[in-house]
């Protein structure tokens, strides 16, 4: 009853047979052991499970593993390159854009996608752009600052 899938996860080719109902987030966490991607809700509201699928942010609780067949996935574990943090990771650290850290992987990957489409967003655009990601610790103040810092760093 397993369905064979093949996809790229953080640059590595993965082949696996999966149950058709298996969610991508459980595939990443329970099958591949990539637990950086978090689960914060069961209604696709919180965004903790956000990953990049072919470069775009998706909520991996809302994608079946079989739907990811043939795609390229980037999780938080695959964002830093050559031991160097992505500018968005750096900016979250710099601006104290995280406290408990649970929303952070999803938040960072959403911001990566946001800055891809809006390289120099206004504060209002940042706040609107983060609509799909909930944070309960920061009041978003320093997350917004982090996005501004990252935008500036990436624009250079």
């Amino acid at each position, binding site marked *: 009853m397993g369905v064979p899938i093949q996809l790229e996860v953080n640059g590595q080719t993965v082949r696996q047979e999966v149950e058709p109902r298996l969610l991508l987030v459980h595939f990443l966490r329970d099958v591949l052991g990539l637990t950086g991607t978090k689960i914060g809700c069961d209604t696709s509201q919180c965004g903790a499970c956000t990953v990049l699928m072919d470069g775009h942010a998706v909520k991996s609780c809302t994608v079946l593993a079989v739907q990811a067949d043939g795609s390229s996935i980037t999780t938080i*574990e695959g964002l830093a390159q050559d031991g160097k943090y992505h500018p968005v990771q750096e900016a979250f650290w710099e601006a104290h854009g995280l406290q408990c850290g649970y929303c952070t992987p999803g938040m960072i990957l959403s911001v990566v996608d946001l800055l891809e489409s809006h390289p120099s967003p206004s504060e209002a655009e940042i706040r609107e752009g983060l609509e799909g*990601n909930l944070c309960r610790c920061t009041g978003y103040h320093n997350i917004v600052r982090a996005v501004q810092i990252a935008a500036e760093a990436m624009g250079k």
Partner: protein
Amino acid sequence: MTHGNGTRGIFGSAIKRREDPKLITGRAKYTDDLQLPGMAYAAILRSPFAHARIRHIDTSQALALEGVLAVFTAQDVEEAGIPGVVPVGWLLPTLKTPAHPILAKDRVRYVGDAVAVVVAEDRYTAHDALEAIQVDYEPLAAVADVRQAVEPGAPAVHEEAPDNVAFTWEIGDREGTDTAFQQAAHVAKLDIVNNRLIPNAMEPRAALADFDPATGELTLYMTTQNPHIHRLLMSLASIGLPEHKIRVVAPEVGGGFGSKIHHYVDEAIVSFASMKLGRPVKWTATRTETYQTDAHGRDHVTTAEMAIDGEGKILGVRVNTYAAMGAYLSTFAPAVPTYLYGTLLSGEYDIPHIYCHVTGVFTHTTPVDAYRGAGRPEATLVIERLVDECAHLAGMDPVELRRRNFVPPDKFPYQTQVALVYDSGNYEAALEKALEKVDYQQFRREQEEARRQGRYLGIGFSTYIEACGLAPSALVGQLGAQAGQWESAVVRVHPTGKVTVYSGSSGHGQGHETTFAQIVAAELGVPYEDVEIVEGDTEAIPHGWGTYGSRSAAVGGSAIATAARRVVDKAKKIAAHLLEAAEEDIVFEDGKFYVKGSPDQAKTLAEVSLQAYLAHNLPKGLEPALEATAFYDPANFVFPFGTHVAIVEVDPETGQVELKRYVAVDDVGNVINPLIVDGQIHGGIAQGVGQALYEGAVYDESGNLVTGTMLDYAVPKAHFLPAFETDRTVTPCPHNPLGVKGVGEAGTIASTAAVVNAVVDALRPFGVTHLNPPVTAEKVWKAIHGA
């Protein structure tokens, strides 16, 4: 730096958090990230009824599913002979304490009450099996509303409390207050609802229990703010294993806000399952489960009155509150609407007469317990709304009325009429700073002008105080706490001079690893990088009480500073011996010991530590090694205070409230790390704004939680909030070694009242005198249109 001899500048420095690299790379391990060999998965069957009798449970179809290892019910718990109940940890003289079984036996009392547990080889199978369990329920009448629950004839939640009254409690001088009201020029009277809130830590609760039948030891990894409290209560009440056979570990914990203080049935259920199966068993709540079962906050219905004289001086405050307990008494539930609420009703004001009566009420709802601020936001909303209403009645500016009633700076320590002794404060200074930041007079002019154009701006103040860092153990014991309120710390200097600190605090996002290392680096004069902080493991740490009530810096940090100073005292003896000098002639500065006047001949802490461990040449009678333990019991609470100001604009056509500006001036004493302190304030404000404008748990007539998902319950999003403008004044705490107070709850305690006051201020032209949070567009529209 208070001790005067630390690494210069590290205390008070806005350094980036050392916690973050593991969090921004996804390497941090939270409970659900852990996998143990042979691990099975648990799922918990929960009651769909708010009140029902369980006639029969048939688990046979669930057990027949491939991959299902076991299904346990109350009968199995009973047969195993374990105590099987979760206890309440705060007693009041009149408190009724009906048992709270870990699995419901013959009756369920709220939607979410645990009925059975499935253990299976994988998550999906465990959840499949839940649907295969047949429970024959006989639904019974339920009551979810706190006022309806105390009406005659309301369905009783527990036989032990047929009138649903869990307790009654009072504080203050009833007769004196009544007399004071007779002298009043004006009396403000408001019916105030502190809306029920759902904590929503982003990480759902989880527990991974690993019982080893060979040793009889249980290791429990769980989402906890206080591992030792969980171990104690599991040993005493729910599981009954000896305390030394239970190890509770808090891995990375994704936020708590109070909701991970309490001992829930769930960690006991998975522990029981692991003991039965001899395998590790993991349970992780779905968000739906966290909505139904994480202890909720607030849920007060209050009638509050304030009397003032003709000069605007407060004569008295009279408060009567009904506070929901929910279906069972959660761990610290009785303390929240009593000692954390009634004692705060003096606010920042010199009030000669206060009386408060509280009725704790059982309802067929999720239990209610401490949620960020716990009692103090409720009290602040009551007092700050009353002050505004009094100003309105007297035709005074609300700022002026506050000013006339502040406890003046020269009146500390100040004994309130509701038990607390405020140790220090300068309320006017924080207010002035806030007024300057918002340019108050200019705003009032703009407001006038805007009103002429049909635009409705409002400004709201919250000149708040809180009592946190609970506080002396003997006192809280007299008040009913079944726990101590001190904190432990071990500061261990290794032979090479590197330092490991073991703290009884248990952070879950607050940045303890950074701030505590800053404290120790400052105290010992060692590089910050040389200090490691260990928390959250009952096997590694002496007994500790954990992180809640904004206590970690004030109590946990004070324990660390005390232990570090004991290390210095011992090192000084060794240094004196090595330098062949008298101990009193030794100077300790920047991590070095030298004889007064001879700084060139110094011994570093590392050099002294190596000698302490080698023990070849120690002063006579001195034990080897270099470490110290402190169990720090504070002399008093700490009292952060400040002024928060909200500016809103209300759209009269839609009732929509826009929060345009938010200014916060807080006094949290000495600041260890400004970056982290500001972050705590920001997050606190957001949660209080959530209560004011967006959040509110709603039950229907049958006791169903209508706001049961993130789709139905409005956790604030980024675009709901403005950037926050923060500043502070510094009035150090006079009674702890670091002069620090608490910061975790301040923002939440202050902000709800500020925002609600701002909305009412905006709506004054419509004759609106009060609105209860959440002040939704619908409520505002109805208030404007008299609907």
